[in-house]
């Protein structure tokens, strides 16, 4: 971490102060190491997803190019970047004003508290800084040995598939890993297979060797056919490929690196609204109650309003999360929950409802521990909230080529939000058959939820999948309400319509 970065000493007392305040509120976090970096370093670190020592890949260069331009044109500025790690690293922009730094540090402590306690982060590697550096070294080593282009091309394929993981798998054991492979069984065929009953001295006449061989063969064929492969549809496609694709050692390693990193980053996508909401909730509380000097109020208000600014028609996760947390706190303080509350229809009564329970703070801490964005929205996005915060549903209008507000109906809004978050915004795809047509072809099935896949990208992705599987690959999906199979056999793409429901 000594690549030109420096820890500014003047922030240390401030960090200490904020740390104590945060602890006082009950936030509990890993140690946080703050580093001040300039904009170029910040853009570099951000391009690498927070890990300066990550493996090399052109896509990080592209990210950097765009961040640098965005910064140069004054369109965007990254104030802070915080890494889920123990100890946690937080990068602060050197040019932030002091009040910015206060805000950002308060924000960071809340993020780290979230990393440490939220259930969805429980299985993430807390020594990821080291792991990433290790990944980087390995990939560089492979690049040296096998050629930069070859490794990068393979990485392209891996990255193209890195959303094909089972987002729930750290929590659910879907299957036992079987250690026995087909070849092991072949080596020791069951001796007693298909033997006709015979007395010992007659055995070799009643069960001659060629007959036995025949029986064995038949049984083997039957058992192979009976064994579905995989037995259950496999959502962790990367794992399936790791175990079954004909890869060289280094390729396997690179693929496993891509998979590890995908699992590491997954919870951040799963809790974006909550995580940002939580951090914003706390920075705002700490700033306004404890940290602000009178002279800083305007600057703080300016910055904070930028954080929660919502474009007309957009949806800002910081703002939505913040408001939901505040709503929860207030409802639990006033006892606005439970069957009694749910059944109350009287508007005036509801407005006045206050049982003075004071459970708010405890509740928000529980929520940050147990929920992810889907369950968070599902549980706490209420009709009242929707109305008060002016949420709406919009749709596309062909005639005007614009988006229009088409409803403020609670059900519709909630449904849409939840739908967008289903599987955390990723299509649900599973390996259906790893020996399709009995020719070792790979058959994936997309569980269609009403939205089609992006077709051009889907075909390019199949191409990448082929690179790894090295036999024809298929994806069953729905296009314009017709069930189709997209295939790629290494030479050309085909689309075939499915008549029945069979695979």
């Amino acid at each position: 971490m000594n690549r030109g970065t420096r820890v500014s000493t003047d922030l240390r007392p401030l960090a200490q102060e904020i740390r104590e305040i945060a602890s006082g509120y009950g936030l509990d976090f890993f140690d946080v190491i703050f580093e001040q970096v300039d904009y170029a370093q910040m853009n570099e670190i951000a391009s690498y997803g927070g890990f300066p020592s990550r493996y090399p890949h052109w896509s990080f260069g592209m990210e950097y190019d765009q961040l640098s331009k965005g910064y140069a044109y004054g369109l965007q500025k990254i104030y802070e970047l915080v890494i889920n790690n123990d100890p946690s690293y937080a990068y602060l922009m050197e040019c932030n004003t002091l009040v910015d730094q206060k805000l950002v540090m308060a924000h960071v402590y809340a993020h780290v508290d979230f990393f440490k306690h939220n259930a969805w982060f429980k299985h993430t590697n807390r020594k990821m800084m080291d792991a990433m550096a290790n990944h980087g070294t390995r990939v560089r080593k492979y690049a040296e040995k096998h050629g930069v282009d070859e490794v990068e091309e393979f990485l392209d394929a891996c990255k193209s598939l890195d959303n094909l993981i089972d987002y729930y798998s750290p929590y659910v054991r879907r299957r036992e890993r079987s250690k026995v492979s087909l070849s092991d069984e072949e080596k020791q065929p069951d001796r007693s297979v298909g033997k006709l009953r015979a007395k010992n001295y007659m055995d070799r006449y009643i069960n001659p060797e060629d007959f036995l061989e025949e029986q064995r063969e038949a049984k083997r064929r039957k058992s192979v056919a009976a064994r579905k492969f995989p037995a259950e549809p496999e959502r962790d496609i990367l794992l399936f490929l790791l175990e079954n694709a004909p890869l060289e050692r280094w390729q396997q390693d690179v693929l496993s690196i891509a998979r590890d990193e995908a699992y590491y980053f997954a919870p951040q996508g799963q809790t974006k609204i909550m995580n940002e909401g939580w951090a914003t909730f706390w920075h705002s509380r700490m700033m306004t109650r404890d940290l602000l000097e009178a002279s800083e109020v305007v600057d703080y208000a300016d910055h904070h309003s930028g954080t929660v600014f919502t474009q007309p028609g957009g949806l800002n996760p910081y703002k939505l999360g913040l408001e939901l947390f505040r709503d929860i706190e207030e409802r639990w303080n006033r006892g606005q929950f439970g069957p009694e509350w749910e059944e109350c229809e009287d508007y005036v009564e509801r407005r006045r409802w206050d049982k003075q329970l004071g459970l708010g703070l405890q509740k928000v801490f529980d929520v940050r521990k147990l929920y992810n964005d889907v369950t968070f929205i599902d549980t706490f996005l209420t009709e009242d909230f929707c109305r008060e915060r002016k949420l709406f549903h919009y749709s596309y209008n062909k005639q005007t080529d614009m988006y229009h507000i088409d409803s403020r109906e609670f059900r519709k809004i909630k449904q849409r939000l939840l739908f967008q978050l289903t599987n955390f915004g990723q299509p649900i795809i599973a390996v259906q058959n790893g020996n399709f047509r009995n020719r070792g072809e790979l058959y994936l099935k997309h569980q269609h939820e009403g939205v089609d896949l992006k077709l051009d990208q889907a075909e390019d992705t199949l191409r990448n999948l082929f690179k790894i599987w090295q036999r024809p690959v298929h994806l069953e999906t729905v296009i314009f309400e017709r069930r189709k199979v997209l295939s790629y056999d290494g030479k050309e793409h085909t689309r075939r319509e499915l008549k029945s429901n069979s695979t």
Partner: protein
Amino acid sequence: MVRRIEEDKSRFDRIVRGKIKRELRKYITHGEMIGRRGKDFVSIPLPQIEIPRFRYGRNKEGGVGQGEGNVGDPIGAAPGEDGAGQAGDAPGRHIMEVDVPLTELAKLLGEELELPKIKPRGKKNVAATRERYVGIRQSGPESLRHFKRSFREALKREMTAGTYDPDNPIVVPLQPDRRYRSWREVRLPENNAVIIYVMDVSGSMGDEQKEIVRIESFWIDTWLRSQYKHIESRYIIHDAVAYEVDQKTFYSTRESGGTKISSAYKLCNEIIDRHYPVTDWNIYPFHFSDGDNWGGGDTKECIRILREELLEKVNQFAYGQVESPYGSGQFIKDLDKEFKNQEELVTSQIKDREAIYDSIKDFLGKGR
């Protein structure tokens, strides 16, 4: 120190260059790049490069937003990218602007069109000498002392002498350890060139024809600039009379009236004689016209000037005939007939924008 990201960035740049190169023909025929030209860069719009993934094609889908407004109110063409993570992200930016240095663009053009390197004419090379550091030697001025090498020598000596102590690693270079950078003089040819653009602005040359000339000149300019260190451009417009003008006027003037090409050739000849001695300069006139000359008499005069004056002096004389709504003139045929095997004269028919690509190849493909 080269930061790691710079390596990734340069790999990304290479991918972008490849994309541009594959679509160069498209960029050549579209004039839009010229408007985006900075001093040393051209800004090229490219579709976003993305790693393909199985993902939702959410275009034209609905979403959830927050704010004022009644049912039915439009909220804009594309709700902000800043939508909640995956939630609410409607179509966003799909075009990125890539800055490509002009030199790089010329290189791409050269590779794609397989343009030969221009061989400047013999005696016009103004040779310049420059020093290049090429090696190391044991003596030299202190200002060129090579620190690292000197210390390495010293370390070597101390180790062989056994005086080096790893626990107290003090290395003191002595006189014989000192190493200095050494240089060699290289003679670099430096060539001067002038491009003289000549355009017919008579009534029959419309806006589209001028646009074609503009696009083609841009690429010619880009290429020649990559081939010569020092280059000048002159601009001549003509109808029945010829004037020398600046670049802006050159592309914006619209005249009516007849066409006397000889007037322009005369002026071109004068400019060469006055400013660009043949011994020092590589000269490239490019003439664009729709080929409708005044009459046979003037064409004869043109041919005479070309044969007796211009072709003697220039590296190459290029004539591009742009097809106008009134059809294509006779001039190109006359030239072709008259100068059948003359290498200094190149003609090219430019039917429409699509033809620019091949026309550039006609003009620059000879490496003269």
